[in-house]
């Protein structure tokens, strides 16, 4: 019995000893390997950078004719580290080196490997390597069963660029159940002008969800190439598309779109009217002032708010129009004008002018009086209590009259 116990204890101790030894040896091996890699990096990195800054057509000569098996990981790390930090010619040379040394082929092999984290890493590396020939494999990786691989493949396609990369990403827009539309839209937006033609071509085949994303992306890219197409979308059969197209034209700042945007203020659907008003504000269209004043009477709050903002952005003529709307028969239009004039600091300016004289003072009193008649007095009462000039406070008190007492509780 005692012998069995001793044997058990010794066995356990031996197992622990062996495990400890394995851990120590493993750690020592990793330390040695990392130390060697650091030492090799110190030697190889200047050679790689010399190639990157120079004009030699091949990296092989810079590395003495090739890369030894022991240095492959080191050179790969150096190239990937630097390729993500630079743009321009140096970036292209480092990408070419990754291909020339066979790393792109290795990443392509790993992209179809059994371990998902290796596939994800390979996809990311292919993006960094900017290898156009990997676009097909990356497009196939968009169907990977693991979402992380799909996402990294999508990002990689965004970095690789070119028609072969754009099409699968545009198609991914149409699968909101598999993809975050926002992420794909960000990737396409970052790709810039090269996606414009593809998005416009693919548009008729996209589903409703993807169509809206496509119009948004074109607005965010700010490409003038998309302007005629976006203007034609203002007469699309789908109201949401018309609204997004108006928004995109405003974001790009297309002055030529003003007549169509003014017409869109009369669209049957309020989101289109709201976005048209917003766009007219962004392009500072003074000619739209009468239509924007009419839009202040719209039955939808969002349209009124955007129209008021647009009038403010139209400059002094827009501000004059807002002041004119203070006398409008429409209560909503009047209130919206009050809110915008207050928000833009125009009310405060007129209040300060109450201390003056002549025409300026007369105008100021007229504006303040219209605010009072519209029942928008909270800012005025605040100024009547806090304004730095006594004469202004007195004038405001006179115009406001005694405060209306709160109704007594029953």
């Amino acid at each position: 019995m005692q012998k069995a116990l001793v044997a058990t204890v010794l066995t356990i101790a031996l197992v622990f000893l062996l495990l400890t030894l394995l851990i120590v040896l493993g750690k020592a091996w990793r330390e040695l390997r990392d130390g060697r890699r650091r030492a090799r990096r110190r030697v190889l990195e200047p050679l790689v950078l010399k190639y990157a800054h120079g004009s030699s057509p091949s990296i092989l000569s810079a590395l003495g004719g090739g890369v030894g098996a022991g240095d492959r990981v080191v050179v790969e790390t150096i190239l990937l580290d630097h390729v993500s930090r630079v743009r321009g010619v140096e970036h292209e040379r480092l990408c070419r080196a990754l291909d020339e040394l066979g790393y792109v082929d290795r990443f392509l092999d790993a992209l179809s490997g059994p371990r998902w984290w290796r596939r994800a890493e390979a996809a990311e590396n292919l993006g960094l390597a900017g290898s156009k020939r990997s676009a097909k494999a990356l497009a196939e990786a968009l169907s990977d069963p693991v979402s992380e691989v799909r996402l990294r493949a999508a990002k990689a396609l965004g970095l690789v660029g070119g028609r072969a990369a754009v099409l699968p990403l545009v198609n991914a827009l149409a699968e909101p159940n598999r993809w975050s539309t926002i992420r794909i839209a960000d990737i396409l937006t970052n790709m810039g002008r090269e996606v414009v033609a593809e998005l416009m071509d693919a548009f008729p085949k996209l589903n409703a969800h993807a169509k809206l994303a496509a119009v948004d992306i074109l607005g965010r890219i700010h490409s003038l190439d998309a302007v005629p197409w976006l203007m034609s979308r203002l007469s699309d059969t789908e109201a949401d598309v018309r609204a997004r197209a108006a928004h995109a034209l405003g974001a790009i700042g297309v002055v030529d779109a003003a007549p169509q945007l003014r017409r869109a203020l009369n669209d049957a659907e309020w989101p289109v009217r709201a976005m048209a008003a917003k766009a007219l504000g962004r392009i500072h269209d003074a000619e739209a002032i009468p239509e924007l004043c009419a839009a202040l009477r719209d039955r939808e709050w969002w349209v009124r708010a955007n129209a008021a903002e647009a009038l403010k952005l139209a400059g002094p003529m827009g501000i004059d129009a807002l002041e004119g709307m203070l006398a409008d028969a429409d209560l909503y239009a009047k209130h919206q004008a009050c809110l915008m004039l207050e928000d833009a600091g125009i009310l405060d300016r007129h209040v300060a002018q109450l201390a003056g004289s002549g025409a300026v003072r007369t105008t100021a009193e007229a504006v303040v009086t219209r605010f009072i008649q519209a029942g928008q007095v909270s800012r005025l009462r605040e100024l009547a209590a806090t304004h730095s000039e006594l004469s202004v406070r007195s004038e405001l008190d006179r115009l406001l009259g005694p405060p209306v007492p709160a109704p007594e509780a029953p």
Partner: protein
Amino acid sequence: MGVAKRILVAEDDPVTRRFVVSLLEERGYEVLVAENGEHALEAATLARPDLIVSDLVMPYRDGYEVLRAIRNDDRVKHTPVLILSMRDHEEDIVRGFEQGADDYVVKPFNAREFVSRVRKLLDPRRA
């Protein structure tokens, strides 16, 4: 050929630092390095470089602090400073210029464009 112009590179990311150093040395400049804002200030006042290339996000003192300290130090206040940063927001860039930066380059950067900007700052007449 005259004496090589001296450039101080203040950058905490070792990979970027090595890239920038290699790029500038390749063009014949004498390059000093600092791994954080504190070292950058010391090196700037001791070595009196002809140009300072500084990151914004660095340990101990960030690039804005370094810039302010340089502009308030009579010994180095006229030294041109080029900010090399990942921060690409308008407000960061504007703040950089407001604090006294002479140029601003966003990472990832175009190496040849960066070298042109360095040349311009070192010899504005030639650019």
